[in-house]
């Protein structure tokens, strides 16, 4: 019996290890950071910004968030220096968004962000955006609509929140894919400060390897969304003064190698509905569809021209050439892309005219004189 009791005691002692809380830091002893900003600080140095939401119980100064910035030789060094100034343990595991200054993006993002993939300090699904005009206005101002810090950016971009097709949403891992995969480049949103909300999307930066080399406008981003099939169903286009809502899009992409040159044919389809017909103007559906086709095809031609000139395949079209090009040639893809023949054809279809008929109702001519 006593042996049995000893065994039970032994098992209970072992149970003590089960919670796995070795050197654990309680939540109230941590500072959970939700947004990181990285900007140049002169020379090779960088300045790291962090924003921490504060819970209500801690609001001695009635502040909803706390912002701190620190300079350092590298991002990790700056974060390490930050810890010398913080009263609690710095926890980056709840980070929601990373802002990178345009100047650093142009130099190449890898030296500043590589730590995120090497070490699991920051979640790989954090959002990433490029900013212009300094971090101060993004980090120091309170959120105008009252969300917790960090959530604001997430809501701003994600499709379940305020995201639209023109706000291209990019996770941290996606920019690493753009860097490591020679057959595609990444497209990262560029934010500028806005006097009323905190920021607005000015366009999307495209990259070569890890360096930003140019930017396309939000309207041009639609082409990217159509080709990659990421279009979300609510997007307004204006043609002949009429506003059309794009409901759905699909793209058939046909790829081929001819004489060592890639040939890419893209056949996209859009289905739309009428949002607002400029009153008094009556245009046939075919005519409207044709002008939408023309408008978007022209825009596509511009985007292809810009990206081909810079050898930046933001559409990931190169991935379709896996197997058609030997793996040893993958590194040559940017060159091949810039020499590629790209055809873009759009078929749009006006599905319906909303709850109001577009036709003018036919009324029997009155017999009264």
């Amino acid at each position, binding site marked *: 019996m006593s042996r049995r009791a000893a065994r039970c005691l032994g098992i209970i002692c072992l149970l003590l*290890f089960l919670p*796995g809380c*070795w*050197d*654990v*830091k309680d939540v109230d002893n941590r500072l959970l950071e939700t947004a990181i900003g990285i900007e140049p600080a002169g020379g090779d140095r960088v300045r790291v910004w962090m924003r921490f939401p504060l819970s209500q119980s801690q609001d001695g100064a009635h502040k909803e968030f706390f912002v701190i910035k620190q300079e350092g030789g590298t991002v990790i060094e700056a974060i390490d220096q930050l810890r010398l100034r913080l009263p609690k343990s710095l926890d980056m595991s709840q980070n929601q968004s990373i802002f990178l200054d345009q100047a650093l993006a142009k130099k190449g993002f890898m030296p500043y962000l590589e730590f995120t*993939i090497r070490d*699991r300090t920051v*979640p*790989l*699904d954090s959002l990433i955006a490029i900013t212009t005009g300094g971090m101060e206005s993004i980090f120091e101002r309170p959120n105008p609509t009252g969300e917790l810090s960090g959530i604001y950016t997430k809501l701003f971009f*994600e499709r*379940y929140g305020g995201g639209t097709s023109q706000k291209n949403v990019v*996770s941290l*891992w996606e920019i*690493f*894919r753009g*860097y*490591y*995969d*020679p*057959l*595609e480049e990444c497209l990262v949103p560029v934010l500028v400060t806005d006097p009323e909300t905190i920021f607005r999307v000015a366009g999307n930066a495209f990259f070569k390897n890890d360096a930003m080399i140019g930017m396309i406008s939000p309207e041009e981003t639609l082409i990217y969304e159509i080709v990659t099939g990421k279009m979300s169903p609510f997007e307004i286009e204006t043609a002949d003064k009429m506003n059309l809502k794009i409901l759905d899009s699909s793209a058939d992409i046909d790829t081929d190698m001819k004489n060592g040159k890639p040939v890419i044919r893209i056949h996209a389809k859009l289905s739309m509905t009428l949002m607002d017909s400029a009153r008094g103007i009556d245009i046939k559906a075919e005519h409207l569809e044709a002008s939408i086709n023309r408008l978007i095809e022209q825009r596509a031609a511009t985007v292809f021209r810009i990206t081909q000139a810079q050898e930046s395949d933001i559409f*990931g079209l190169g*991935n*379709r050439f*896996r*197997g058609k090009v030997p*793996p040893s040639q*993958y590194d040559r893809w940017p060159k091949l892309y810039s020499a590629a023949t790209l055809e873009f054809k759009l078929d749009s279809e006006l599905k319906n005219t909303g709850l109001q008929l577009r036709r003018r109702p036919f009324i029997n001519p009155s017999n009264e004189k």
Partner: protein
Amino acid sequence: MNPSNEEQKISLPQYFVLQMMVFGAISFHLYPWLVLQSTAQSYWIPILIWMLLGLLGAWLFSRVLALHKGKDAYTIAKRVLGWPGVILFIVPLLWFMWSAMVIVVRAHSEMISMTILHSTPQWFLDGMIFIGVFLAFGGIGSIIRASVLFLLVSFPLSVGLVLLGFGDLNVNLGKPWLYTNGDFLTSPKFYTTSFVWAGYLYYAACGKYAEHPKKLWRPYTVAALCFLPLLAASVYQPALTFSPEMSRILTLPYISKMDSVSYYWLVIENLTAVFIVSSILYLFLLLALIMNCIVTAVRAVFPSWNEKLLCVLAGITAYAAIRLIPSWEWIERAVEWDTALRLYLMYGFPIAVLAKSFISNKMRSRQ
């Protein structure tokens, strides 16, 4: 200690459960990395080739066990090949199993400290080997009973995680889908991937409880078919999400894939922690099974030695070895170095035993 073990019978479904635990414990850490490194073309071809070779090995091994029904593989080796059999088979197998245990425990403790428990000291995490020792005390019966229970928890978790990983996939990244130039044949990594399919070797000790040892390849086949989609997913999901080029530079591609999964409706934020929990459940049972194999092997040579003491001894020596492993890179290399020995045990040994018994049968019939 466990007299019931002597007349114990293990049914084929129970063997299936054991094999599932083996697959679960060794599938997800090194395997995706090795397959991605081994070829630049279709990944499913090297995966499938090794699966078929694994089935062949399992079939050969079940033939060996069927030579003397009710005896374990060690006794059979000793009977058929005599003392050379002990040296040619039991010693290499002992080394293989012991080193498999060392590597798998260290791989998991590295994974745990890389992912969830950053501050827990490694020496403590490595101590999980003693849970395996504790489980092995109960003998094969309790190992199987625990396996059934653990599998009910961990397999649905594994399947669920794989299903969640189907977001964010880009099919174009897996091209070419139907083409290979056989480049993997020249890659040592391809041969290293055989470690996932060597699970039938762990039937060496418990195979003697089978009613029909000849049929032992069947539970292995069913388990392999159950795990094939999961293994394929562990390779393809990172490749189709991150691109093969990026997956190749990741230490644990499948874990990084799980880090990248994000759904608005998903309540659990840290899928990696769920994954680790499920793979640890597999691991405990695998450790107990290996321990059981080791003890049986030693007792085939020295029948009078105490079972429990041997368990503890195996645990302590393995723990000491685990503590001596310097780095993750070393684990990768150790699995690679083990390849020749593993292939010898998987195919060379069963073929040798079958050939010897075939020849002696012929000679006996001639006399």
